[in-house]
C-alpha cells in the first residue's frame, strides 16, 4: 500500500517547549499562539482607536467587532442588563477567535483550543461567572431557581431535580469545554489528514499525479476551518451569554 504513516496524536497537537522545558512556565507553540492572540487583540484595538468620522481599516474592523459582540451576542441573549458583561464576552470572543484562527495561518497552523487547557479554563471561568451572577441576583434562592423549573408537578420533582442538577452543574461546563475543544481538534486532525495524504502521495511513483486531489481537500477545509474558527468563538461567547442570562434572569 501507500507509504502512509499517520502521526500519533501527540505529534499533531503536543508540542515540545522552546524554553523552560518541563517546568510550570514552559513555553511551547501553544503559549506562542496565546502571545500572538494577545498581541493581535491589543494591536487591533490600539490601531482601531481612532476617532475618525468615517471609519476605515482597523477602526472599521474594531467597531464592527464591538457592535457584533454587543448587538449580536450581549443584547440578543441578555438584553440591557447584560451590558456590564460586554468586556468579558468581548475578550472571550477575541481571545478564542485569534487562538482559533492560527489553525489556518501558515507556519503555525495549530489552534490553541485543540489543546484542552484553554477551553477548560475559559469554560470554568464562565462557570464561576454565571453561577456567581445567579447567586448575586437571587441569593441562595438561586439553587431553587436553577433546579426547579416552574410549573412542574410535585411528584415529578423527584425526577426533575437530579436531571437539572446534572445538566446545569455537571454537564454544562463539560459540554461547554468539549464543544470548543473537540471542534478545533477535529478540524485540525482533518487538515493534518489531508496534508499527510497529499504528502504521502508525493513519492515519485505514478500515483503522485493524484496528490493534487487531497491538496484541493486541504484548501477547501482550510476555508471551512476559517468559518469554524469564527463560528466556535461566536458559539462559545453566545452560550456564555445564554448561561449568564439563564442564571440571573427572574423569569424562566
Amino acid at each position, binding site marked *: 500500500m501507500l507509504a502512509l504513516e499517520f502521526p500519533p496524536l501527540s505529534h499533531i497537537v503536543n508540542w515540545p517547549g522552546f524554553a523552560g522545558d518541563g517546568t510550570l512556565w514552559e513555553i511551547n507553540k501553544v503559549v506562542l499562539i496565546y502571545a500572538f492572540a494577545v498581541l493581535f*487583540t491589543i494591536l487591533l484595538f490600539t490601531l482601531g*482607536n481612532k*476617532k475618525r468620522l468615517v471609519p476605515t481599516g482597523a477602526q472599521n474592523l474594531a467597531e464592527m467587532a464591538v457592535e457584533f459582540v454587543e448587538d449580536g451576542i450581549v443584547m440578543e441573549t441578555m438584553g440591557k442588563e447584560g451590558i456590564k458583561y460586554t468586556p468579558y464576552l468581548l475578550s472571550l470572543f477575541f481571545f478564542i477567535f485569534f487562538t482559533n484562527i492560527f489553525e489556518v495561518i501558515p507556519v503555525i497552523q495549530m489552534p490553541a483550543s485543540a489543546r484542552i487547557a484553554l477551553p477548560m479554563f475559559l469554560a470554568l471561568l464562565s462557570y464561576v461567572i454565571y453561577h456567581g451572577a445567579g447567586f448575586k441576583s437571587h441569593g441562595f434562592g438561586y439553587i431553587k431557581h436553577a433546579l426547579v423549573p416552574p410549573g412542574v408537578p410535585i411528584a415529578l420533582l423527584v425526577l426533575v431535580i437530579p436531571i437539572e442538577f446534572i445538566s446545569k452543574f455537571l454537564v454544562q461546563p463539560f459540554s461547554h469545554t468539549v464543544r470548543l475543544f473537540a471542534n478545533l481538534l477535529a478540524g485540525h486532525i482533518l487538515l493534518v489528514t489531508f496534508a499527510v495524504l497529499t504528502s504521502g502521495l508525493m513519492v515519485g511513483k505514478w500515483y503522485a499525479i493524484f496528490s493534487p486531489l487531497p491538496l484541493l481537500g486541504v484548501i477547501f477545509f482550510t476555508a471551512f476551518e476559517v468559518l469554524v474558527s469564527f463560528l466556535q468563538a461566536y458559539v462559545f461567547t453566545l452560550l456564555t451569554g445564554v448561561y449568564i442570562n439563564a442564571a440571573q434572569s427572574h423569569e424562566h
Partner: protein
Amino acid sequence: MRRTRLLMAAAALVLLGFLGFARPAAAQESKTKLSHPAEECIKEIEAANSIDVDCQKAPNPLLPQANEILWGVVGFGVVFGFLAWKGLPGIKAGMNARTERIQGDLDAAEAQRTEAGTVLAEYQAQLAEARTESARIIEEARQAADEVRSTLQAKAESDIAELRAKAAADIEAAKTQAVADLRGEVANLAIAAAEQVVGHSLDRDTNVALVESFIDSVGATS
C-alpha cells in the same frame, strides 16, 4: 489585476515545485538533530525491541497541560484587562462621539430649519399686518372722505332748506302784512264811506265793531 495574475502564477509555481520535489518513499526519516527526550525514547525502543513503550504513547489529549493553563490564564487576563481598561471604552467613546456628533449636526440643522421657519412666519406676519394696516388706512381715509362729503351735503341741503323756509316766511309775512294793511284800509274806507252815508250818527268804536263783524261774516262765507 496584474497583482492577481502574479499571485496566481506564484501559486502555480509553488504547486509545480511541490510535484517536482516529490520525495522518494524511503526518505521519511528526518536527519535533523533530535531533542534529548526523543533520543532517550529511541534508545528505550531499541532496548525493548518494540515500539509499544511508555514514552511512545501519546499523552491523553483530554488532560490539560499545566503550563498551557497557566499561560492561558495570563494571556486571557491580559486581553481582558486591556479590553476592559482601554480597548472597549476607547472604541465605545469613538462610536459615541460619532453618534453624538451626527446627532448634534442633525439637531443644529433642525434648529436652523426651525429658526428659518419662525423668521419666515414672522416676516409673513409682518407683511400681513402691513397689508391690513394699509387697508385700514385706506378705509379710514375713504370713510373720512365720505363723512366730509355727507356733512357738506347735509349742510348745503340744510342751508337750502333754511333759505327756502326763510323766503317762504318772508312771503307769508308780507302777505299777512298786506292783508292786514288792506283790511285796515278797507275798514277806514268803509267807515269813511259810512260816515259819509250815515253822518256821524255812530261813534267810531261802534262803527269799527260793526264793520269788523261784517267783514268777519264776509270772511266766513267767502
